């Protein structure tokens, strides 16, 4: 093939990818600001004649106390995701360090446990967790949701952090120990500062999993005031006449935090995505 043919193929493929990726993004943004008339017009409107913030106002302010709005959803999502990140990191860092560095009886068993639970197919957890939550009446509780998210994120955190701690040269820690630093002191002052990239990428990974999670939030939460943002959006969509501008506005508002996080911490997130610890 000639050089021009190659160029044409390359540019064509690039444009096709850009269209496939950006058109949906564009369509979401534009639909969220359309008036009802232009939203449902027979000939689709690709550039609205007027932009209205109506849909955003509608999803952010509920008409009555008992009716949830997206603010409740975003707040619940933030609380649940934040708590999941905090617990997964706190427990994960401590245990992963001990597994990677300390000597204790039963270490082989714990290491094997971490690997085994990491390999379990996620679908095996759906039915038993549902039954367990029904039994202990953790139904409809954000705390219960955090527990369900830990089941999905703690094994990954343990594995990724453990691998990272093992890659830190032991000599650095030993030097600090010889200088009279205690083991907890070494972890706090030497290991954790050295592991900021790994800890940050695990934190972002766990946050995104919890922020995006739908299944467990959908089965466990029945009180609309406790809906997380994704469940709130599915509830918006389930109305008799789907208010598509509102669904799109809510989608924009859930997506924006993720895009901001992503652009700020691109390096770390990509590392987390490709480090081999990822699991869906």
């Amino acid at each position, binding site marked *: 093939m000639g050089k021009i043919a190659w160029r044409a193929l390359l540019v064509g493929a690039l444009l096709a990818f850009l269209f496939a990726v950006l058109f949906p993004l564009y*369509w979401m943004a534009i639909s969220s600001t359309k008036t009802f008339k232009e*939203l449902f017009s027979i000939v689709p409107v690709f550039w609205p004649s007027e932009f209205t913030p109506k849909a955003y106002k509608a999803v952010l302010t509920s008409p009555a106390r008992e009716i949830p709005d997206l603010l409740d959803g975003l707040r619940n999502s933030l609380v649940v995701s934040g708590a999941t990140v905090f617990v997964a990191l706190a427990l994960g860092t401590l245990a992963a360090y001990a597994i990677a560095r300390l000597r204790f009886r039963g270490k082989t068993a714990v290491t094997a446990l971490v690997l085994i639970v990491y390999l379990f197919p996620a679908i095996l957890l759906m*039915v038993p967790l549902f039954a*367990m939550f029904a039994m202990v009446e953790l139904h409809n509780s954000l705390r219960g949701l955090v527990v369900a998210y830990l089941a999905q994120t703690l094994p990954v955190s343990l594995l990724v952090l453990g691998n990272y701690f093992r890659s830190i040269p032991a000599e650095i820690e030993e030097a600090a120990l010889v200088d009279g630093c205690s083991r907890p002191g070494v972890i706090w002052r030497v290991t954790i500062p050295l592991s900021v990239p790994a800890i940050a990428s695990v934190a972002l990974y766990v946050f995104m999993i919890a922020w995006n999670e739908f299944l467990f939030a959908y089965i466990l939460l029945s009180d609309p005031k406790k809906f997380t943002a994704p469940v709130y959006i599915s509830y918006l969509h389930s109305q008799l006449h789907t208010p598509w501008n509102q669904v799109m506005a809510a989608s924009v508002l859930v997506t924006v935090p993720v*895009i901001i996080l992503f652009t700020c911490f691109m390096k770390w997130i990509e590392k987390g*995505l490709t480090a081999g610890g990822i699991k869906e």
Partner: protein
Amino acid sequence: MGGPRGTLRRREEQLAYLMVLPAVLVVLGVVLFPVIYNIWMSFHNLTLANLTKGASFVGIRNYLKVIRDPDFVQSLLITVGYSFSAAMMSVAAGLAAALILNVRLPFRNLFRASFLFPYIAPLISVVYIWKWIFDPQAGVANWILMETGLISAPIDWLTDGRMALPMVILFQGWRYFPFAMLLILARLQAIPQDLYDAAAVDGAGKFHRLLHIALPELRYVLGVVFLLRFVWTFNKFDDVFLLTSGAGNTKVLPILTYRYAIGTGQLGLGAACAMFLSITLVAFILVYQLRVLKWER
């Protein structure tokens, strides 16, 4: 034992237990126990109604019931076919995207970042964007396709018996190609330039170099990415649930599991269905490792 060294060792061991214990308890309680409980449930006639009243042992009756359900066989076939096609699609598109980004282009980093959007954005948003674009009444897709004459009447893309499954596959390919792209790109950029230069000196054209240098180097990463995508798609619940809720021949195994256990409260049947799913998956992974990735050598 004894002496300062021994006490130091013992103190370290105590510290280790303190550090490991909380995580181990959580993992045992919310992962290992549920999985064992799932196995137990699959042999008992547990339902939401008799959850706390004690269910009785029914042997493999749940498994037989699931196998005899005509939905199950169809669902298994659909799941295998759809996981395979969706994994193939995301790997193929990921390979294409990686090859594009491997060329020195202006704004390469910008393109790369925007390609990641489908994978990074919350599932809920991208699903509803798709549902809106492919809405049977007011969707822009139907309008464009009718204007260009590609279809003559609007199509109900996500519930139509012929269209829904290809749409789900297309969605998966679209959403997960960036994952494949990242891994493939990392491998592509690790191929030493000398290899290409040597081939260019020998007079190999671009296409030739791609076929005989890049692809063989990528064989392993392509195999691994395909395996990961296949396994994850096989397990995937919420994508299909949100996109079609199982309408139009898209009732995949995770959806069937959900319908048994949560939809109708037959926890035992759901558990047995999840076991079938897992066993199929493990068998596939073992065969794949031996045959395709050839890890025994």
